[in-house]
């Protein structure tokens, strides 16, 4: 029983991080119909930003995270202005272009920081023990932070003016334009928010598992699976699917070893494609 609880808690923690990263993907897709392949590299760059600022330069952890968010947002807006906007946000060409950009970024990072993975020591060392279940404090911190941010995002989209503007653009770009909303500036906001989510998720992954130039590929692929299962563009679907994928990873990882966990994710995806191709809460594809 304790063992099962331990697996569930571990799964929910990693699931919440994946959920946060996938929220960025689903936000971009839902509002702009763009799949940003650079998203995983934003996570990777953020983890390294935290490493450089907090570990190498000795600044406090939160300063590192703030630097990571800033850096990630700058890179994302640069990608938007230089790559996606010239292509008029055409989904297929943007996807292919994003693949190229992501390789360039990954390879450039590799050249700068070297192939060795680096560790980011936990800000909150120590372990919580509760009914025989052990959770590192850093993990609890990550899970709480990710959940708070997810809720904040939902509140932001629902109740604030810029959030409402985003949903207006999502529903009908032309109508929003007629109501005096500038879609281009909404797009910048969307890219910045999505980059911030990637930055926090990447920073958390970095503190839990270390940072290396290849680390962006895995959360990106997982995000795609999560978003497809949850339904493209659906916040609630992404949250549920993210936690579910985290749980499934934890269970299969314990039973079969970490390398096979991904194959089970894919199996779940395939089942969804057979039974419900548009995902849990998605609209028709």
């Amino acid at each position, binding site marked *: 029983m304790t063992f099962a609880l331990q697996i569930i808690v571990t799964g929910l923690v990693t699931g919440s991080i994946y959920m946060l990263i996938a929220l960025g993907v689903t936000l971009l897709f839902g509002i702009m119909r763009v799949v940003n392949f650079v998203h995983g590299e934003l996570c990777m760059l953020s983890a390294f930003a935290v490493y450089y600022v907090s570990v190498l330069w000795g600044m406090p952890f939160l300063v590192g995270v703030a630097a990571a968010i800033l850096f990630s947002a700058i890179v994302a807006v640069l990608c938007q202005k230089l790559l996606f906007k010239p292509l008029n946000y055409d989904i297929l060409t943007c996807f292919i272009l994003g693949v*190229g950009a992501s390789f360039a970024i990954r390879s450039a990072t590799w050249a700068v920081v070297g192939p060795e993975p680096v560790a980011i020591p936990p800000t909150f060392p120590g372990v919580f023990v509760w009914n025989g279940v052990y959770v590192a404090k850093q993990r609890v911190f990550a899970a709480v932070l990710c959940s708070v941010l997810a809720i904040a995002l939902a509140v932001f989209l629902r109740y604030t003016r810029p959030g409402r503007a985003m949903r207006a653009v999502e529903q009908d770009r032309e109508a929003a334009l007629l109501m005096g909303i500038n879609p281009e500036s909404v797009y910048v906001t969307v890219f910045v928010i999505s980059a911030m989510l990637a930055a926090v998720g990447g920073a958390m992954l970095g503190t839990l598992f270390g940072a290396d130039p290849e680390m962006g590929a895995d959360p990106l692929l997982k995000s795609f699976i999560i978003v497809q299962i949850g339904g493209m563009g659906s916040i609630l679907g992404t949250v549920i699917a993210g936690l579910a994928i985290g749980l499934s990873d934890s269970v299969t990882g314990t039973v079969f070893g970490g390398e096979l966990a991904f*194959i089970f994710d894919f199996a779940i995806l395939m089942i969804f494609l057979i039974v419900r191709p548009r995902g849990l809460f998605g609209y028709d594809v």
Partner: protein
Amino acid sequence: MTSDRWGIAALLVALALVPLGVHDSYLLHVMILIFLNIMLATSMWLLGITHLISFGQAGFMFIGAMTSALLTKDLGVSFWIALPIAGVLPAAIAAPVGRLSLRVRGVYFFLVTLAFGEVVRGIFAYFQTPFGGWYGIRDIPPPSPRWLFTPLDKVPFYYLGLVLVVLTCWVIWRISRSWFGEVLWSIRESELLASSVGINVTGYKLVAFIISAFVAGLAGSFYANYVGYISPLIFDFQYSVSILIFIVVGGFSTLAGPVVGAVVLTIVPELFRATGKYQMLIFGMILVVSMLTMPDGITGAIRRLRRRRAA
């Protein structure tokens, strides 16, 4: 049209004569790599006609390579029997995978095939016993007869590759010009219109997907028995992306596009080989720059230049 034919005939004769003049085994090796990449690029191009890109192409190639490696090494089967099996098996796997992946359109299809390729890699990397795990399989025997295909002499492999690539290009060219290809082009123009005149759009895409998996499997088999070593580190997602870059840089609109792209982009990285870790950076930048400046690739840019000169 006839001048094109003469040009192709002259090119083929020239290619057949290359080993008589070139004895440098490194140059021949690069030529063989070009042949392999052309096979893969044309296979992806056939499906690409319908605006679909299979990011699982490296996965199918890996399945073909693994089939060929296990058959020739562990079971002692001749390469000439293993080669067609290495094509049929990925095609057989492509049928159900394609049937499911084609339930989603456009970008979602990319993502699902991408995940498929990673799963193939994951499975081969996980199981040590038949597949060799992350270490892969080494000492895969070359094709028979042994006196002809020796590891030191690249010339027989050169001709084998040439035959395979010419056959592939010819078959894919014939397919793209047949009624089947016409249907694919009509799907490219307008999926809605095609389906409204009674064309089973998904069915045609599925067949194109299966054919491209077949060709990728053949290429994998040739790769395995030529290089003699395969591992999950080779057939990764980057490999699929490289194939895509061949087509994007070469141009999508004719078969010449993937061929030109594969030739140019096999030679360019070889020139940059000394830069090592920057190779992928250069590759990514070539993709980005060529998409922004030449939306229809090298062949499209040439065609536009010709037209401008004619006008």
